[in-house]
C-alpha cells in the first residue's frame, strides 16, 4: 500500500466518530436506533439500518485501533484489542481462558475470519426443539448469506497463502479419505502474514472495523461512540427508548426513537438485558461454547507456520458423528513458546526450531451448558464446566491429531494433556493419550465461540427473545448476536451471527417503515441544518 492510500477504517465523515475517552461533558443525543456493540452482529445491523435510511448510533465499549497501528507484538494485542487483556476465563471445575475482542469490530478484529453458513442440521434442530424455523431457516438466510459473501469477498484460502502448516494438514487428512479443505474466509488480498489474531496489518481480513462499521458511517446516517460502556437500556412504559453508557469522564445518554439493538456478545448481552429489567427465567442460562484444544509437533524439515493463513485448513469429517471439527492454527511465537513444553535449555532448543513446528487443533461442540451472571461489582461471570463426554471428545480428537502428526513425519509431538508425557516421540505412546484422564483440568482448553444465554424461542418461559428478535419482556429491545442462538453449532459462528443480524435488521427496518421519520433526522444533521 502506498503511503497516500488509506485503509477503509480511516474513511468516514467528520464527526462520525465520538471518542468517549476524550469527552469532557455529558452527551445526550437522539437517533432512530441505538446499536450496542460493533462486532459481527452490531456492525451488520447498524449498516443494514443506516442503508435503509434510519439514523443509527453504534456504541462500542472498546477503542478504535486502526489498521495502520496493528503490530505483531501479541502483548499489544492483549492490551489494546482484547477484553481484560485476554485474562478472562470460564469458571468451573477448570478455568478455561476466554478470548473476546474489545475494540471497534469486536472479535472480528482478532479472529481468523472463517466463514461457515449455519448447517442445515442445526437449523432443523432449532426448528424442532425451539419452534423458530419460520424465522431462521436456510431459505430466509440464503439471500443474507449471499450478500455477505459477496461484500466480504468470501472464498477458500488461495494456494499462494496456504502455507505448510495448512498444507500438511490437508495432505494427511486427504490421505485418510476425510472431508478436508482449505477454509473459506473473509479475505480481500491476503498476503499470508499469519497475523489474523493480532489484527490484519494489510487490511485484507474483512473484519467489521474495516467494513460494515466504516461503511455504516459513510452513509452519513450513522455515528459510532467508542470507549463508552453501556450499562443498561432506558426503559419507559415497558419499551426501550435509549441506552445509558459511561465514558471515561462523561455519561452518554443516547435516545432511540424506534428501538435499541443489543449485540454486545454472548457474555455481555445477558447482563445488559438484566440491568435493563429483562426478567426471563432463561436469561443467562444455556450458555454454550466450542472450547478448543491444540497439539503441536516438531518436524525435521521447515513448516513455517508463521507464513500463510493463520487458520487455513479444516476437516468437518467428524462434526456430526463425534461433535468435533479439526482445524489448523498458527500461533505467534509468544503463544507457541508458552505452549511448547520444557523449561530452560530444552525449551530454547525447541524455540530455535519453531519454524519446524506445526499446530493443529480441534473445536469441540460441547454439550455442557453454563450460566452467565454478574458479580456484585458488575463484572460478567461465566460458570461453565465441560461434561465428561465433552472431554472424551476432546481427548479422542487430540489422539487423532497426534496420530496425524506422526503419519505426516513429525519427530516430536506435544499433546498438551496433563497426565500424559509432554513430549511423545513414537506412535506407540499414543495409547497413553487414549487413556488420558477425563478431567477438564488436564486439558489446555481455550473458548472463543460463545452461544446462548439469551436464546430465541416461542415460549417465554424457556427463551428470552421472540421470533421478532425482541425480548419477550421489553418492547423494542432487540438482540442480534450469538446470545440468541438456542444452541452451539459445531462450526465457526461469525457468518451465522452476521447473517442473522442482517435478517433481523431487515425485518426490524421493514416493521418500522410505517413509523420511519425523515431519512436524515440524526441530531448531527439537524445541527448542521441549524
Amino acid at each position, binding site marked *: 500500500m502506498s503511503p497516500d492510500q488509506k485503509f477503509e477504517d480511516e474513511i468516514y465523515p467528520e464527526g462520525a466518530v465520538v471518542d468517549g475517552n476524550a469527552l469532557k461533558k455529558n452527551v445526550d443525543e437522539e437517533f432512530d436506533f441505538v446499536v450496542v456493540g460493533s462486532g459481527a452482529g452490531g456492525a451488520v445491523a447498524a449498516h443494514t439500518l443506516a442503508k435503509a435510511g434510519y439514523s443509527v448510533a453504534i456504541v462500542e465499549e472498546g477503542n478504535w485501533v486502526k489498521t495502520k497501528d496493528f503490530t505483531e*507484538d*501479541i*502483548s499489544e494485542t*492483549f*492490551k489494546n484489542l482484547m477484553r*481484560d*487483556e485476554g*485474562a478472562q476465563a470460564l469458571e468451573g471445575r*477448570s*478455568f478455561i481462558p476466554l478470548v473476546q475482542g474489545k475494540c471497534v469490530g469486536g472479535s472480528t478484529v482478532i479472529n481468523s475470519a472463517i466463514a461457515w453458513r449455519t448447517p442445515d442440521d442445526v437449523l432443523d434442530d432449532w426448528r424442532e426443539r425451539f419452534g423458530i424455523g419460520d424465522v431462521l431457516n436456510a431459505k430466509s438466510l440464503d439471500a443474507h448469506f449471499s450478500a455477505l459473501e459477496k461484500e466480504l469477498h468470501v472464498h*477458500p484460502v488461495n*494456494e*499462494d497463502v*496456504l*502455507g*505448510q502448516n495448512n*498444507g500438511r494438514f*490437508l*495432505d494427511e487428512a*486427504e*490421505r485418510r*479419505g*476425510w*472431508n478436508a*479443505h482449505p477454509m473459506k474466509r473473509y479475505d480481500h488480498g491476503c498476503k499470508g502474514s499469519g497475523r489474523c489474531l493480532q489484527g490484519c496489518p494489510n487490511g485484507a481480513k474483512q473484519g467489521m472495523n474495516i467494513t460494515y462499521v466504516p461503511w455504516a458511517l459513510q452513509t452519513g446516517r450513522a455515528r459510532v461512540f467508542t470507549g463508552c460502556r453501556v450499562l443498561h437500556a432506558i426503559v419507559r412504559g415497558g419499551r426501550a427508548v435509549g441506552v445509558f453508557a459511561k465514558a471515561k469522564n462523561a455519561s452518554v445518554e443516547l435516545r432511540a426513537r424506534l428501538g435499541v439493538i443489543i449485540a454486545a456478545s454472548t457474555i455481555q448481552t445477558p447482563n445488559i438485558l438484566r440491568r435493563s429489567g429483562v426478567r426471563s427465567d432463561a436469561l443467562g442460562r444455556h450458555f454454550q461454547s466450542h472450547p478448543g484444544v491444540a497439539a503441536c509437533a516438531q518436524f525435521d524439515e*521447515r513448516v*513455517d507456520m*508463521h*507464513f500463510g493463513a493463520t487458520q487455513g485448513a479444516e476437516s*468437518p*469429517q*467428524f*462434526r*456430526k*458423528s463425534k461433535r468435533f471439527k479439526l482445524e489448523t492454527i498458527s500461533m*505467534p*511465537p*509468544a*503463544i*507457541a*513458546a*508458552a505452549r511448547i513444553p520444557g*523449561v*530452560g*535449555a530444552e*525449551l*530454547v*532448543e525447541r*524455540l*530455535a526450531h*519453531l*519454524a519446524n513446528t506445526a499446530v493443529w487443533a480441534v473445536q469441540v461442540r460441547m454439550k455442557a451448558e453454563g450460566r452467565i451472571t454478574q458479580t456484585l461489582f458488575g*463484572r460478567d461471570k461465566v460458570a461453565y464446566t465441560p461434561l465428561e463426554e465433552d472431554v472424551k471428545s476432546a481427548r479422542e480428537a487430540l489422539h487423532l491429531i497426534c496420530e496425524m502428526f506422526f503419519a505426516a513425519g513429525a519427530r516430536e509431538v506435544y499433546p498438551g494433556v*496433563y497426565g500424559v508425557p*509432554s513430549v511423545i516421540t513414537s506412535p506407540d505412546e499414543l495409547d497413553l493419550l487414549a487413556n488420558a484422564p477425563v478431567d477438564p*483440568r488436564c486439558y*489446555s482448553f481455550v473458548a472463543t465461540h460463545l452461544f446462548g444465554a439469551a436464546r430465541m424461542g416461542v415460549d417465554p418461559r424457556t427463551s428470552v427473545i421472540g421470533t421478532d428478535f425482541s425480548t419477550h419482556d421489553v418492547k423494542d429491545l432487540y438482540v442480534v448476536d450469538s446470545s440468541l442462538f438456542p444452541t452451539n453449532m459445531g462450526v465457526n459462528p461469525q457468518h451465522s451471527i452476521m447473517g442473522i443480524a442482517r435478517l433481523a435488521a431487515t425485518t426490524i427496518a421493514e416493521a418500522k417503515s410505517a413509523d420511519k421519520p425523515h431519512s436524515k433526522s440524526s441530531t448531527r444533521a439537524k445541527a448542521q441544518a441549524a
Partner: protein
Amino acid sequence: MNLTEFELRNVEAAARAVFPKNAHPELTTGAEDLDVRGYFKDVVARSNLRIAAALRLTILFCAFGPFLAERKLETLASQDDKQREETMKLVIASPIYAVRQLVLLLKVHLAMIVGADPVARKVMLPTPVPYSRTKKLLGDANAISGEQPLVKSLVKGARRDVA
C-alpha cells in the same frame, strides 16, 4: 498496585530459569537481555485488581517454588541457575491445578517478552521457504500411498461424504 523488590527479584529469577541466555548457538537471547522487571511492573500497575492479584500470586508460587516442589526452605532467587531450572520444571508440572495454571500464565507473559525481541524473532521466524502444495503433490507422486490418484486432491471443491 506495585510489585515489591522481593517479587521483582523472583520473577526475574523465574524468567532466567525458563528462558536462559546462550542456551542455543542460534537463539542466544535470554531473559537477562530483556527488561523483565519493567514489563511486569507495567502489567501489574495497569491491570485491574483481579488480574494483578493473580499475577502476584503466580510470582509468589515461583518465589516459593523450592518449598512447593521440594520442601526446601529457600526462594527461587536464592538458587543457582541449575537448581532454578529444576524447580521451575517441577512447579510448571505441579499436581496442584491452581499452581500449574497460574505458572503457565507466567510462562505466557515471559514468552511475550522473549517473543517481542527482534533478535529472537529472527531466529524463530526465518524467511519462509517457497512452498506450493500443488507442485509438491505433482512432484512427489510416491509420497502418497496408492489409495487415491493424485489428481483428486488437486480438484477444487473435492469432498468426501461425512461419516
